[in-house]
């Protein structure tokens, strides 16, 4: 369906607001940084942040930490996706089981996952393994809940056709359930990836010896505030790119 065309004048005005907003925010930041309202160094000038950003992206140490965070992220996300999809389909294809599991899944889904960090640390230590486990735990719930809801919503006529044709469990999964679940799984993965990123970085911030979160909190502890801001910028840019990639995948494959 064609979208309603926007008046070019309105489009220009919207663009002006969107350009002016960050400009105003930067001016405000610069004013606070130079005003002396806060302790010196707490809010560095934008120039200092840009310099720190440049020094960070020129440093090989950043890429070492970046690599560790990305490895933890993909490890955690892959585990979350596989377990989330399997559990989601297993529960969703049995309505009674899904109603039994729903209170557990819903309450655990809304619990801050970072509080499980001590548990995964006791199991896996303070290295990347515990961050992978925490990321997997965080990502599991949105993926499992979305897949479960999707499985419950599979048209009964399709399931009945499968039964009439005497399809095996594997055939039911691959021919009936999975093709109907592309949308819910991708939506769950998109939500899951977001919370996996957060859990891994928070885990690194709390107790770790490598990764972007560790680097940010190290700069905070040594009062290299401009460097800390530049790491936060790198983290947000990464999150932005990951979100854009998931949006693209979602638009490309989710036809529901």
């Amino acid at each position, binding site marked *: 369906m064609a979208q309603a065309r926007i008046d070019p004048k309105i489009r220009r005005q919207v663009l002006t*607001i969107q350009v002016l*907003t960050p400009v105003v925010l930067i001016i405000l930041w610069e004013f606070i940084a130079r005003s002396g309202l806060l302790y010196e160094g707490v*809010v560095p000038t934008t120039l200092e942040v840009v310099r720190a950003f440049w020094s960070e992206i020129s440093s090989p140490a950043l890429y070492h930490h970046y690599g560790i965070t990305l490895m933890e992220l993909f490890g955690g996300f892959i585990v979350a996706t596989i377990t989330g999809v399997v559990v989601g389909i297993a529960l969703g294809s049995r309505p*009674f089981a899904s109603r039994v599991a729903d*209170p557990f899944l819903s309450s655990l889904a809304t619990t*801050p996952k970072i*509080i499980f960090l001590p548990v995964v640390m006791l199991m896996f230590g303070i290295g990347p393994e515990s961050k992978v486990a925490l990321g997997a735990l965080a990502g599991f719930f949105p993926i499992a809940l979305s897949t479960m809801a999707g499985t419950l919503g599979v048209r009964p006529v399709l399931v009945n056709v499968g039964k009439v044709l005497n399809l095996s469990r594997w055939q039911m999964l691959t021919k009936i359930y999975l093709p109907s679940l592309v949308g819910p799984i991708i939506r769950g993965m998109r939500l899951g990836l977001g919370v996996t990123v957060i859990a891994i970085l928070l885990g690194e911030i709390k107790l770790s010896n490598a990764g972007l979160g560790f680097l940010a909190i190290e700069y905070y502890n040594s009062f290299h505030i401009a460097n800390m801001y530049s790491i936060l910028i790198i983290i947000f840019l990464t999150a932005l790119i990951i*979100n854009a990639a998931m949006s693209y995948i979602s638009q490309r494959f989710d036809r529901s």
Partner: protein
Amino acid sequence: MSMTPAEHRSKAFLAFIWSPTTAALLVLLLLGLALEGLLASGLADRSIVAAPSEMLQSLGRLFARDELGISFLITLAQALSATLMAMLIGLPFGYALFRYELLGRAYRGWLAAMFAAPLVLLYPLFLVVIGRNYGTTITMGVMTGMIPIALYTCEALHKVSPTLLKVGAAFNLTVKQRFRLIQVPAAVPDTFTGIRLGLIYALVNIIGIEFLIDFGGLGRVVSTMFFRYDIPGMYAAIFFIILISLLFLTILKRVERWLRPV
């Protein structure tokens, strides 16, 4: 054929026995017993996992000696004040996004992107500017809670049925009267969804930051127990937070259902 009261009672009892709630409790009980068995047989390590019986005993100890009740009230007070402030900002902002087309077009997409962004990772920034105090935890709660409130308020006002507005116009209602008598009541259910999400986001982030900076209420208790290496106490605190999450979720969903009579 009509059933006798005794048959009614036995049918209701059977329905309760086979209900998902009973099955869920049974599953929980079985998992607890299995864990006790694994720990007793030495197949699971007590330095990693606490026995459910020890955990429940520790829960009483946490209330008596480690002020778990007060910690809960501290976290609750922070979450409620953060949500209140988020509402004070989010509701008018959501209305402005609806009322002024330019603002809506310029900022709605940004807000949606911020909703998906890991805003909680900005806490070191507030730690630097505000310090290690309730100001930081509440500010993080406000920031994360405000976005769904503004977005859902705007959506709710957009979704008000045009028929209702035409009825208002037919009754010669002024713009203010239409807003007060039609748009606000019609937008309440969807706006509440935003407030529910805002409160949950605020609570989750506040507990998370408390844990990270060892300060405040429930999150601090988990962190303290971990650093004391009090394993049953740590599991008891985590279990209590899960119970609180479940309680919040149940209450808020009931209120939402009550506001949205079908």
